[in-house]
């Protein structure tokens, strides 16, 4: 109820609030309140309210430069190192504001994993890649690490392909395998939320299909937010879809609704390919 009582300034925020009302039938895992982001003088995010439910896949769509990647990177504070980055508003993860001064960013990132646009394995062995997240936590128990690595690789549907070559360099894998390795690496830390920034844009259709299947399977255990430029992909894999345009959240609803009966003309135009 708290959300619907936020100040109503103009028509836009009424619509946004309506969208949130739909999404917040259940307990929200991530709550975003009036978030604004600047890079120096450039305003990249112009005040977004939103809430994302656990164990769902939410797709962020919108034309390039609309701020969706910037917005995604707020959830694990990856924008912190960007020069000129400034942020206002609240992002609450299970009720805790992750932008409070006292928040341990490293701890946050163990909870909120991220898969990037281009596969970025470390120039180390397959095993070392997956074990890295555990080792930096100071875990030394070899048996535990071995088990976690195996589990993560199985979850990422890569185990069968690499189980005999765990010591091989990760850079020798194909692009699709590398991306699944990056997913396995993220899973090994056992986060509750996984952010994916166009994870298939550098991959061929077969590798893409594999990753999409994977996302579908992971939904049971994780909350997934995925940025994508591929409308079909958003339609196939996501439960909710958010459409962004020039730093604003235009529409956020069930994916089905967005793709069949969007409220805004702008959304419909984008989805049907008439602009963007």
């Amino acid at each position, binding site marked *: 109820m708290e959300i619907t009582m936020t100040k109503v300034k103009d028509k836009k925020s009424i619509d946004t609030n309506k969208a949130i009302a739909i999404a917040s039938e259940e307990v929200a895992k991530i709550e975003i309140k009036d978030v604004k982001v600047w890079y120096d003088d450039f305003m990249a995010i112009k005040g977004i309210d939103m809430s994302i439910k656990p164990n769902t896949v939410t797709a962020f769509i919108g034309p390039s430069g609309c701020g969706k990647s910037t917005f995604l990177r707020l959830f*694990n504070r*990856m924008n912190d*190192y960007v*020069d000129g980055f400034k942020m206002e508003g609240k992002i609450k993860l299970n009720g805790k504001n992750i932008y409070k001064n006292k928040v341990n960013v*490293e*701890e946050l*990132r*163990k909870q909120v*994993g*991220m898969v*990037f646009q*281009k596969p*970025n*394995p*470390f*120039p180390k062995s397959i095993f070392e890649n997956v074990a*890295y*997240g555990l080792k*930096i*936590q100071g875990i030394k128990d070899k048996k535990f690490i071995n088990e976690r690595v195996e589990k993560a690789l199985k979850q990422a549907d890569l185990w069968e392909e690499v189980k005999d070559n765990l010591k091989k360099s990760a*850079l020798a894998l194909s692009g699709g395998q590398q991306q699944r390795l*990056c997913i396995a*690496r*993220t899973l090994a*830390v056992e986060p509750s939320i996984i952010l994916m920034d166009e994870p298939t844009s550098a991959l061929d259709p077969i590798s893409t299909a594999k990753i999409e299947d994977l996302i579908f399977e992971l939904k049971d255990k994780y909350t997934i937010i995925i940025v994508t430029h591929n409308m079909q992909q958003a339609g196939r894999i996501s439960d909710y879809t958010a459409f962004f345009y020039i730093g604003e959240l235009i529409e956020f609803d069930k994916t089905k609704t967005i793709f069949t009966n969007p409220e805004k003309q702008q959304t419909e135009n984008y989805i049907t390919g008439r602009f963007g």
Partner: protein
Amino acid sequence: MNSIQKNRFKDQLFKFWGIACTLFGLVLLTIFIGDILIDGILRIDWAFITDLPSRKAEKSGIYTALMGSIWILVLTTIIAFPIGVAAGVYLEEYGKKNKLSALLEINISNLAGVPSIIYGLLGLEVFVRIMGLGASVLAGALTLSLLILPIIIVATREAVKAVPKSIRDASYALGASKWQTIWNQVIPASGGGILTGVILALSRAVGETAPLIVVGALAYVPFAPSNPMEEFSVLPIQIFNWISRPQHGFIENAAAAIIILLLITFIMNGIAVYFRNKWQKKWK
């Protein structure tokens, strides 16, 4: 001649100009090394390396100078390597990108180009006089460390800069702290470049003469230094000293010492190239 032919002609012209320029350097180097080898190769034997200096050319050896050079090399490495690498990593990873850092960057590059004798004067004032180290190996090594620090810092920064951002992102996203990311990812990935820079800088330090003369390295020391506070000589100074003697025997000695010095620098550069290639392979 149409434009395609013209371009092809220019292409060929530039190619031959390039070949000529390359040969110019190579030929001169070959003549120089050949000349030195003819003069000095026969003079080199085990005794030449292990003998102490003497007034008689045929009894003179490079032992003290060689040991002095090794002392200088080791001490300079111990001093300059950690400071230079740490400074380079700091400037690249932690230093804020603002006007001050831009100014600092330009000045570090400028420092790398300051004539070495200026460093000698600085060393003389600061290390020899103010710090009271005297004309010791330590004062010499500190002075040379100052000389090569800018080179190491610049090389480290370049190597660190070359590590892709995506690797850092991946490390941070898994919950690594900044230090963990630098230690586990950035430094291993840039290690080849850093090591190459350090070795090349050290091989320059081994060949330096002017700053050590100013600091007070001697042309003649009866014994090799046994601790960092003792007086010393180094190979380039020994060579300089022998060359200025009138007797032919000493000229031969100088040529032989030059061969040893060249050998040391070639080996060091070879090691640098080896590391660079090894690291590059790892990245592919």
